[in-house]
């Protein structure tokens, strides 16, 4: 097993510990943001594991887990946890309902796509992120070296496409940008905003640092995924591992009690979120 194949397993292990840590907090505190973070992190971990598995062998249900949880949903759920922490307004509950229903709808669309997966397009030679989508070629456009092509009917026209695992025009693929945009804005935006608020007030440096680390971790995986989809997959597994480590470190740093709080915490339990 190469180092590149090992990295996603290490990321999975880090995410597993992180998820357990967050869900333990939820079991004690019952704050909904811990629940959404925990579920989102579990999705991230499942996606990392699926990616690691798919670097070694094919399994269509592992691909289901990878796409639904790893590529589509996890960022939105983690980010929604951040939104629940930052705002306790009623409209947030509406977004919670939209997120849950949207996730169920994405799962339904993914289930619908399952019988049409093109397993012949799969290879263990490159990350699944680089080969999951069928891409239509523009007229005159040449396919990348080594790519498998096919002629398919798409929207009533015959087009040449680079073969991918999900068929051309799979509706489930349309859902992914919604979750990822929402996740980016809430997770990264929320962490940057929190860090800025504490920094501006010149208080709680651990929260400033923690939020910077969380934002950097989320951007690390966001950037690596984007580069992968543009055909530069070399940094994906490193980006994933970096994201897992930075976000966990950020969470631990932000949650660490400060000396002044620590000495009085049993008597006056201030909000530590």
């Amino acid at each position, binding site marked *: 097993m190469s180092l590149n194949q090992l990295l996603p397993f290490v990321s999975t292990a880090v995410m597993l510990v992180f998820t357990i840590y967050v869900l333990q907090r939820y079991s004690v505190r019952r704050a909904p943001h811990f629940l959404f973070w925990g579920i989102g992190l579990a999705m991230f971990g499942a996606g990392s594991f699926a990616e690691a598995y798919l670097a070694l062998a094919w399994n269509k249900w592992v691909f289901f887990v990878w796409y639904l949880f790893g590529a589509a949903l996890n960022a939105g759920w983690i980010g929604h946890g951040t939104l629940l922490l930052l705002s306790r307004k009623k409209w947030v509950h509406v977004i919670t309902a939209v997120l849950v229903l949207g996730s169920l709808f994405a799962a339904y669309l993914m289930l619908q796509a399952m019988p049409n997966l093109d397993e012949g397009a799969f290879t263990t030679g490159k990350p699944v992120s680089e080969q999951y989508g069928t891409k239509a070629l523009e007229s005159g456009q040449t396919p990348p070296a080594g790519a498998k092509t096919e002629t398919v009917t798409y929207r009533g026209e015959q087009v040449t496409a680079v073969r991918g695992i999900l068929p051309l025009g799979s509706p489930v693929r349309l859902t992914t940008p919604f979750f990822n945009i929402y996740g980016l804005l809430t997770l990264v935006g929320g962490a*940057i905003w929190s*860090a800025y608020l504490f920094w501006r007030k010149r208080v709680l440096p651990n929260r400033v640092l923690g939020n910077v680390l969380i934002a950097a971790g989320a951007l690390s995986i966001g950037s690596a995924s984007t580069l992968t989809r543009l055909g530069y997959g070399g940094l994906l597994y490193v980006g994933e591992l970096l994201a897992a480590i930075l976000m966990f470190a950020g969470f631990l740093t932000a949650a660490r009690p400060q000396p002044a709080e620590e000495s009085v915490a049993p008597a*006056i339990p201030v909000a530590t979120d």
Partner: protein
Amino acid sequence: MSQSRDPEQVKKLRTRSHMPQGSLLFEKVIPVLLVVMGVIMILLVLFAAGVLLGIVHF
């Protein structure tokens, strides 16, 4: 969470932990990082929106 506590008391407790004064990390590095990360976030959001709108093909 802490609604039953005296807000002034809570605020006082919170503000006991201050940023170190004259720290290069907090005075220079963190603000630059926040701006850079904000810009990267906006670029990634624009990319995802471009995919959604069919402007970016991948």
